[in-house]
């Protein structure tokens, strides 16, 4: 299934086609990712939004080959610079990982080995892909640490992770990811564990690097605020599937899925005093027993006929960008306007 | 999942059952037959030469090998067979002949004065000290030994055999002995050495067993030039000099120029080994082959904490003799396997194992209860706990038969069928007791319940405890058994008022029944370290002094009987002791004796001559020989 949405920025670096990742367990099959397609281009920040369990992390881990192929049932294609990562043998994949395709994770403290010096861990990352002397590798590391904004990098290189602050650790992780000038950087909740002020710095750093090195960035988050800030493209995921995918402004101003509406309405907006916070009724479904038809239908106030039987296809129904909802584009526009109005009216 | 768990459980269960069944089968059946007779020994053409190797799982030195302080058989046997000659000694043979003192260092039996108070010994010519002393043994050497006995700092553990008997010895001891008189210049009235080969003893009162007392290692000669440096208990033990056919390895290297230059002999380490080699100065012409044959060139006794391994090594021929207590399986194997039977030697150990009852403590303060206890006790059961018939004869009275020349062999005042106990007679006795209030033959007064019973933690005492409890329960006495690591100290402390104890045994000091009768002498009763556990002859004054409570009036005393027998000699003496034994069993009943313990030893087939030494109750090392071709 090809991706209907096309960006004017050029060839896709990473092209995911109908990805399915299922985990057989004694209690049933966990459908972590169930038919996902998207692509990321150079210079693009692609935001993946969703609650925990929506499949956003698994998608990227699968792309990197960090999901155990023996314990998961994987289908589909993940094309990276023309090659399907899912079919590459392990040793080939290892050459890609960390070099052309890099990933950073949520909790930078837990992500660095507590018993080795930060510098040594980064030097190791250099030497695994480049045949450099230790001295040269160390120079490169110092250079990189400086580039990500760590002060006095030559001294900090000898420190242990517990001697770094939260923000510095994440910078170091970013540095480690960028050592080999990867083409795509995947950032899985990079700011969730950090203070708000530090968050902003890290996001800014990622953007700067994206611009400087012209790489593609996938930003995984549950925080719509983050996505609103830096992403060019947004994909909303639910129960292992894409609900909506479009340009950031598109998705934020003209959202085309009841789930997205619910998400937007549950964000408190600083400037709007007295606005009601409307949580989405119910809770995310078990990935073993995904509801038939549209996975969101049990919680959707606008469900109707086909919703509990037929799985809505992911396509552009005339709204301007692809989404997975049986409602017509017309209906969706109307409902959104109503909901917006109703929300401000209730203000006291 | 669940199916697998059930299968696993079933498997485990069946394994357990199988193991249990395997373990239960084949209990110890007593070896009937050959292994219960007194052993005749082995004599298969002994040749001189070779090393005799033996191992023990625990050296039991009581004075660190210092003859003045040693009192156990292990030392006596080794010393008197191999290392040191005493004025009177033994021939180291089995039975009554082995218990007869014979002249050793002395030329002949002593001259005894008419009044029995003076003993004169003449030392043989040509008996030399081993290297590095290299000189003739003198009467002063013997006298020096007695000075040591009378030196409190040397803790002579058989000192009481001499102090108070030899004139002036007690006074010498009171004055501090050699500690105060290091040169040994102070005269002792009762010991005279008119010349180098003559020594005269003068006694306070006649003692029919004085010759036996002289025949003990503490009374053997000690060289002053070496021993003067060692005036604390146990020190001399690492420097023991030889007058016998063998010496401690390394003796010749001892530098005796001064106390400072002496180093412990390397052939002896109290925790590890004893190695003896031939004494070049020993002249067989000064000795007899009845007493010593000296076949092997070298003797090794080493420590092996794994007793099972000792027996395995003997079986494999890597050791000649196991100097350790046989586990039950070994007893069984050797007494039933025809190939091994002739390597297992049993002889009377001149010792009695018994249950002692405290005459002051209810319910045992009533003679009828004590008699009932003798009637009811399952002695055969107790013997089985020990390992069955090979372990000894059932004891029916105090003194082992071999020490009374069998005079009391048929004396069984409390006989029962198969020695398993006689309930009827026991009940008859109980009925006459004040503790059987309804006279039904069962003890029912409150004093019959919760009676403290002391025993050891080790085997076979642990196995015996329930048997004793069961027997006593049949006559209504409920025992509260408590096992102690240090059970002897408990029963030796009068204040503890232990009513009944089964941890005790007693072996002879030398072959005279007086060494057993001392256990019933009221004058030996002490507050601590008391061996008259039953408190026979305790007077109310003594009781008060010692803080003993309970029934302290009217306790029978046998002190007069003991004194009377002590003055007699030979057959008269023997008859006297036998009569006293009967009296004790009939009229005093302090004990329930149950086993006349055997001394049993396992040897390898490389032992070409084996003889039992009745005097020590150990192998007669001086007569043993080894066939070097059969050694591994």
């Amino acid at each position: 299934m090809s991706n209907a949405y096309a960006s004017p920025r050029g060839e896709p670096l990473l092209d995911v086609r109908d990805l399915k990742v299922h985990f057989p367990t004694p209690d049933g099959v966990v459908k972590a990712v169930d038919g996902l397609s998207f692509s990321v281009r150079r210079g693009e920040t692609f935001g993946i939004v969703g609650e925990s369990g929506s499949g956003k992390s698994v998608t990227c881990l699968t792309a990197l080959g960090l999901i155990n192929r023996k314990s998961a049932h994987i289908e589909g294609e993940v094309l990276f610079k023309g090659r399907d990562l899912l079919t590459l043998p392990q040793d080939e994949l290892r050459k890609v990982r960390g070099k052309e395709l890099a990933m950073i994770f949520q909790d930078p403290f837990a992500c660095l080995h507590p018993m080795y010096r930060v510098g040594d861990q980064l030097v190791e990352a250099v030497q695994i892909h480049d045949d450099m002397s230790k001295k040269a590798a160390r120079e490169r590391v110092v250079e990189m640490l400086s580039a990500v904004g760590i002060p006095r990098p030559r001294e900090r290189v000898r420190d242990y992770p517990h001697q770094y602050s939260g923000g510095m650790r994440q910078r170091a992780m970013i540095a480690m990811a960028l050592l080999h000038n990867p083409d795509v950087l995947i950032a899985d909740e990079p700011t969730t564990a950090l203070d708000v002020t530090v968050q902003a710095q890290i996001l800014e750093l990622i953007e700067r690097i994206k611009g400087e090195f012209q790489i593609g960035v996938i930003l995984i988050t549950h925080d719509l605020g983050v996505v609103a800030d830096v992403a060019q493209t947004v994909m909303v995921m639910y129960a292992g599937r894409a609900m909506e995918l479009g340009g950031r402004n598109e998705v934020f101003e003209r959202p085309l899925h009841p789930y997205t509406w619910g998400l937007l309405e549950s964000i408190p907006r600083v400037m709007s005093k007295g606005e009601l916070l409307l949580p989405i009724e119910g809770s995310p479904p078990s990935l073993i027993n995904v509801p038939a038809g549209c996975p969101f239908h049990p919680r959707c106030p606008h469900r109707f006929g086909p919703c509990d039987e037929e799985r809505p296809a992911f396509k552009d129904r005339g709204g301007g960008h692809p989404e997975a909802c049986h409602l017509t584009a017309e209906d969706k526009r109307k409902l959104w306007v109503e909901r917006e109005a109703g929300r401000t009216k209730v203000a006291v | 999942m669940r199916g697998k768990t059930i299968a696993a459980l079933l498997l485990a269960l069946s394994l357990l059952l199988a193991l249990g069944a395997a373990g239960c089968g084949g209990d110890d059946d007593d070896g009937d037959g050959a292994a219960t007779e007194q052993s005749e020994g082995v004599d298969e053409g002994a040749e001189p030469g070779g090393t005799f190797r033996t191992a023990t799982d625990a050296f039991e030195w009581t004075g660190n090998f210092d003859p003045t302080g040693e009192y156990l058989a292990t030392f006596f046997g080794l010393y008197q067979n191999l290392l040191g000659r005493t004025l009177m000694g033994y021939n180291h043979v089995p039975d009554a002949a082995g218990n007869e003192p014979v002249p050793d260092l002395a030329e002949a039996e002593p001259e005894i004065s008419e009044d029995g108070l003076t003993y004169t010994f003449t030392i043989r010519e040509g008996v030399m000290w081993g290297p590095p002393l290299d000189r003739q043994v003198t009467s002063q050497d013997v006298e020096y030994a007695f000075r040591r006995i009378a030196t409190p700092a040397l803790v002579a553990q058989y000192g009481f055999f001499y102090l108070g008997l030899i004139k002036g010895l007690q006074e010498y001891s009171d004055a501090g002995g050699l500690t105060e008189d290091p040169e040994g210049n102070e005269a002792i009235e009762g010991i005279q050495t008119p010349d180098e080969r003559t020594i005269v003893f003068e006694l306070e009162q006649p003692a029919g067993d004085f010759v036996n007392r002289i025949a003990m290692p503490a009374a053997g000669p000690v060289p002053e030039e070496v021993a003067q440096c060692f005036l604390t208990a146990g020190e001399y033990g690492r420097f023991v000099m030889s007058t016998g056919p063998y010496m401690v390895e390394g003796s010749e290297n001892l530098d005796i120029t001064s106390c400072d230059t002496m180093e412990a002999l390397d052939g002896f380490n109290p925790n590890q080994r004893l190695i003896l080699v031939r004494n070049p100065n020993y002249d067989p012409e000064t000795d007899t082959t009845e007493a010593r044959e000296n076949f092997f060139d070298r003797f090794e006794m080493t420590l092996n904490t794994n007793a099972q391994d000792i027996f395995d090594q003997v079986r494999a021929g890597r050791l000649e003799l196991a100097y350790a207590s046989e586990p039950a399986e070994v007893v069984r194997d050797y007494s039933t396997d025809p190939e091994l039977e002739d390597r297992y030697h049993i002889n009377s150990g001149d010792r009695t194992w018994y249950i002692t009852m405290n005459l002051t403590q209810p319910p045992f303060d009533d003679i009828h209860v004590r008699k009932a206890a003798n009637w009811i006790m399952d002695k055969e059961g107790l013997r089985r706990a020990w390992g069955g018939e090979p372990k000894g004869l059932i004891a029916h009275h105090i003194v082992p038969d071999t020490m009374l020349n069998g005079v009391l062999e048929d004396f069984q005042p409390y006989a029962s069928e198969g020695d398993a106990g006689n309930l009827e007679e026991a009940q008859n006795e109980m009925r006459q007791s004040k503790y059987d209030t309804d006279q039904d033959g069962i003890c029912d007064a409150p004093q019959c319940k919760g009676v403290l019973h002391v025993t050891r933690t080790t085997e076979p005492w642990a196995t015996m405890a329930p048997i004793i409890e069961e027997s006593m329960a049949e006559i209504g006495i409920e025992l509260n058994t408590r096992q102690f690591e240090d059970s002897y100290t408990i029963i030796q402390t009068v204040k503890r008022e232990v009513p009944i104890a089964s941890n005790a045994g007693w072996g002879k000091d030398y072959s005279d029944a007086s060494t057993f009768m001392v256990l019933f002498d009221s004058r030996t009763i002490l507050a601590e370290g008391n061996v008259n556990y039953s408190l026979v002859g305790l007077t109310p004054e003594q009781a008060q002094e010692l803080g003993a409570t309970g029934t302290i009036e009217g306790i029978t005393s046998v002190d007069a009987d003991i004194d009377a027998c002590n003055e007699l000699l030979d057959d008269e003496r023997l008859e006297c002791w036998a009569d006293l034994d009967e009296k004790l069993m009939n009229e005093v009943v302090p004990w329930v004796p149950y086993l006349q313990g055997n001394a049993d030893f396992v040897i390898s087939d490389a032992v070409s001559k084996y003889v039992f030494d009745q005097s020590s109750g150990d192998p007669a090392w001086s007569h043993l020989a080894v066939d070097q071709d059969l050694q591994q």
Partner: protein
Amino acid sequence: MGRYVIRRLLWTVLVVLLVTLLTFVVFYVMPPGNPAIRFAGKQPTPELIAQVEKQFGLDRSLPEQYAHFLRRLFLGDGTECPLYLRPACAIEPVEEFVVLETPGCATGVSGCGWPGLGMSFDSRTAVRQELIERTPRTLSLIVGAAVIWLLLGVSIGVLSALKRRTIWDRLAMGFALFGISAPVFWLGLVALWIFTVKLPFAESMGTGYVEFGTDPVGWFTHLILPWTVLALLYAAFYARMTRGNLIDTMGEDYIRTARAKGLPERRVIFKHGLRASLTPIVTMFGLDVALLVGGAVITETVFNIQGLGNYAVQSAVSADLPAMTGVVVIVAFAVAFMNLVVDIVYAYLDPRVRYS
């Protein structure tokens, strides 16, 4: 770091002293009855008992006895030593209230001296001499066994963790179950039976300890069986621990990072995974070794290695108080010392734990 070590060493000394006080109370104060009686003969007379008490120092009050014990420990045995055991006059003989004033120093075998641990009641020899002879034997036993169990246990644990839920894992954990359940004395006796009774290795692998200096090959061959028997139990524990720790560690985030970097799996396991999972094992190892110093009783008895464990039990059974307290002093010191070593090693391994 140096100051830290010094401070810990001082604490070690204090701990050892506290332990000796406790030992003193347990063995000298609490037992029922007078220990001197046991050493005063078959029919102890009051005079003999008094004499023995005097020689053992038991006629003094308990605080005096303890003070004497401490003085002896820090200043040496002094004149309590028999003449032939005194070291050459390096230390001034301390005036003693026990026994006689035997003048002079000797140039004989140095068994007495510093630290002064007194004279054994049983064998009347210097406890220190016994301990000097026995310690190398126990150490030979422990060190060899420790090397084996560490290598064996950790490798099996790693194998098991990596091949989780396969037949290898089950076999390995089955071995662990066996090793932990089989009683040491049973293993020892069976091993001896197989190798020295059924197979012809009695000479080289039999019981008993051979001094290294006399016969290095014999020293080794006679220790093979005891090493194995002792190591088996610990190897089993360590295998289980390593397996558990490694499984936990491999689930940590930094392992994911290591893989994300593109490291080969072998390096991820052995450099990143193992390093983090070994630290608790280090702690356990130090304490296990220390406790074996006086604790390898069964192995020492079954294989007739006359070491410290054996000595501890023998002295306890025969109520030989100075010998017992001597062993306790050594073991307490070993434990306290190993604690310190383990802490230092741990700090070296895990920078998060360092004192600053």
